[in-house]
């Protein structure tokens, strides 16, 4: 079975400011902050007025017990809004709310781990944002969301080539076949032909 070399595997590129946009919506997770700060800096020199039309939602890297707050590098900038979130679902809920109110002319920038990008893109797709309105830069863990094609459950934070499905407990081979609609890679039963015979389990998505 084809595992790699599959066209649907997303390709990312370093974020660049698109100052043809009227409004800018930026999402960052963990080390993704650095990419957002870089693109804001680029924007500041190309079209300084764009900062006042830029909203930033971030999940900062913070230690346990530390209150969640936007990194000071963002708070200093004359942005329209900066908000910090403790976890992905809360950020996505706010993002969805913003998409519902946003106008044509909005550009989306996402920086962070691929699974975070995927979930943001899935929502953006529901609002019919096209490729020319979205930029994404992959930073951080390559851990994957894996969709079980047998029971349709999604297993999170997968770092290995073979993984046990959280719901049906089949051993799944993780393919590069990616679904933008599901924001997940496809997992296919690895030992269907010869039950119990599995290739060695290796960490491949660090």
């Amino acid at each position: 079975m084809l595992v790699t070399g599959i066209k649907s595997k997303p390709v990312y590129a370093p974020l660049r400011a698109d100052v043809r946009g009227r409004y800018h919506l930026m999402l960052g997770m963990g080390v993704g902050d650095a990419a957002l700060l870089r693109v804001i800096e680029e924007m500041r020199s190309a079209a300084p007025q764009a900062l006042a039309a830029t909203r930033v939602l971030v999940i900062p890297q913070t230690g346990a017990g530390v209150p969640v707050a936007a990194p000071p590098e963002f708070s200093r900038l004359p942005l329209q809004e900066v908000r910090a979130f403790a976890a992905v679902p809360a950020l996505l809920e706010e993002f969805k709310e913003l998409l519902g109110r946003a106008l044509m002319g909005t550009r989306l920038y996402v920086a962070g781990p691929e699974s975070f990008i995927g979930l943001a893109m899935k929502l953006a797709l529901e609002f019919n944002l096209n490729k020319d309105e979205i930029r994404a830069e992959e930073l951080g863990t390559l851990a994957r969301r894996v969709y079980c094609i047998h029971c349709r459950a999604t297993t999170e934070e997968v770092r290995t080539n073979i993984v046990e499905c959280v719901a049906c407990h089949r051993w799944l081979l993780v393919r590069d076949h990616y679904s933008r609609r599901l924001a997940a890679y496809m997992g296919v039963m690895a030992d269907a032909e010869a039950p119990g015979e599995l290739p060695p389990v290796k960490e491949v998505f660090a």
Partner: protein
Amino acid sequence: MSEAQTLTVEVTAIEQITPLIKHFKLAPIAGGSMPAFSGGSHIVVVMKGASRVHRNPYSLLSPPNELGGYEIGVRRMEESRGGSHFMHDEVRVGSLLEIAHPVNLFNLDKIARKHVMIAGGIGITPFMAMLEDLREGPVPYELHYSVRSPEHAAFLSRLNERQAGRFRMYYDSDNRFIDFDGLLSNQPLGTHVYVCGPAGLITRVIDSAQGWGWPDSHIHWEQFSAPPVGDAFDVFLARSKITVHVPPDQSLMESIEAQGVEVPYLCRGGVCGFCQTKVLELDGELIHNDHFLSDAEKARRNTIMPCVSRARCKTLVLDL
């Protein structure tokens, strides 16, 4: 597209609906149904005039779910090269016409969250069919329709009957014009804008949308250019090994076809890119009149759209 793929239709009704526009109904001579199409499609009508053959693209305006016949609207062009005059003056109820199968180069975006349509004059025709496709659906849409004066408002009664509350009229004679910035600065994410009409209208809509940050994938337009007249020139067809003379009032494509050489085409209006032909040798200038090639491609001087483009040259050799 070759002549073998055309259908023969009979003109079953003609109505002069505005001072400039005639409305034609076409039905298959053998009975039965016409090929299915989606809103925004056009057909090419082959008109065999006394001295030459005209092939003009016309948008289908009838409801796509009514396939007993097709309807088209033809505006009489002041500077016609003959096609629209042929349709207006020569075609009668009962006349037979050859048409090419429908092709859609002006599609609705199927996953749009809203559609904003802007029509100027005869540019209303593709929208008449698109509106039918949208009528029963859940996606919001609106039409903004601009004409010189009320007597020029084609298909108004059909719009009133089938699209009440979903369109707005703008009459130049009342000094009522579409406020492009007002319209395009305030649309929800996932909106698509579609414009069809005179070149000036299309340019203003594209400029305004881009100014408000709309990306190209949300801006759709269609304008069929009539092949402009120009100086006569000669072209050598390398594969057919013949020289073809292109007179001032005939297009490059028409002149080549008149010599029995087929050029593949879909729109004949500089839109689809299907007839793109390699230029093998050129001593002179190409006059690009299409909306397909980018400026960079045009500057390379190695490709041409024979449906609308010409040349001012001593030598032109095409890969045909």
